[in-house]
């Protein structure tokens, strides 16, 4: 299915968020996730089902003031 990952359209096979992150190259990374604007804690990712057109945000530590 196609989902939006950080604003870009991507094809993923996994149906759950954990699998999708692995597939998209985030395996083992320190990231926080939100689907359709709602925060999804790391512990909830295996149970979080993705559907066509979902908007996934994957955020990581960055410089800030």
């Amino acid at each position, binding site marked *: 299915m196609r989902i939006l990952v950080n604003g870009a359209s991507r094809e993923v096979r996994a149906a759950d968020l954990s699998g999708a992150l692995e597939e998209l*190259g985030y395996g083992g990374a*320190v990231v926080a996730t*939100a689907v359709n604007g*709602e*925060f999804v804690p790391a512990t909830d990712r295996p149970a979080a089902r993705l559907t066509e057109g979902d908007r996934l945000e994957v955020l990581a530590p960055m*410089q*800030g*003031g």
Partner: protein
Amino acid sequence: MLRLYEVDLSSRLLLGTARYPSPAILTEAVKASGAQVVTVSLRRESGGERAGQGFWSLIRGLGVRVLPNTAGCHSVKEAVTTAHMGREVFNTSWVKLEVIGEDETLQPDVFGLVDAARILCKEGFEVFPYTTEDLIVAERLLEAGCRVLMPWGSPIGSGRGLNNLFGLQTLRARFPEVPLVVDAGIGLPSHAAQALELGFDAVLINTAVSQARDPVGMAGAFAQALAAGRAAYEAGPMEPRDLAAPSTPLIGTAFLA
């Protein structure tokens, strides 16, 4: 000793980590500044580049406490969601809460700020609200559960120093027990010294250090200015007066006319 949410800190400088020429210079600047708290943010991570992972490992190596911000958030929902994401990634209940109301000045939307602070304090966050010097907003933030306030000196990145001296002094006088951190607008060590001379507890600085020709040298200059400003405050500055007062005694002046 500065105490922010039950954490004792010997440095009165909170340092931003953005816009340094290189990661090595950021590292050296943090060390030279003596800062024990640095601000960080969350941004989109690419699965290919994973740039944030390297940055996070650099910050962890510094052995300092992190204060995640909600920079760039314009609504209560965005700020609250960003705070949740930051708490998970950075493993801290501290959050520098920013709800921006206007893009040219990056002035806080104080109405959204109070709403977001109320939600986050109830959820157990320890909120550092980026606010204006407005007394009533400060009261509302304290009622919402904030135990530190961070009034701006002047707009973020402007380097204009303490823009509304009267307002800041009034805020200090009105809330003598609340830790007050001047956040934003400080451009020079003298601005930071001035904030501490007025009794502010700390300053949060980023651009003034990171955009200096020599960020490491400037970080050290800020550390000295803060030490001087605090020492001056503790020593009790003299009262200004309008007319001259001779410092040399008049008694015993020779008559030589």
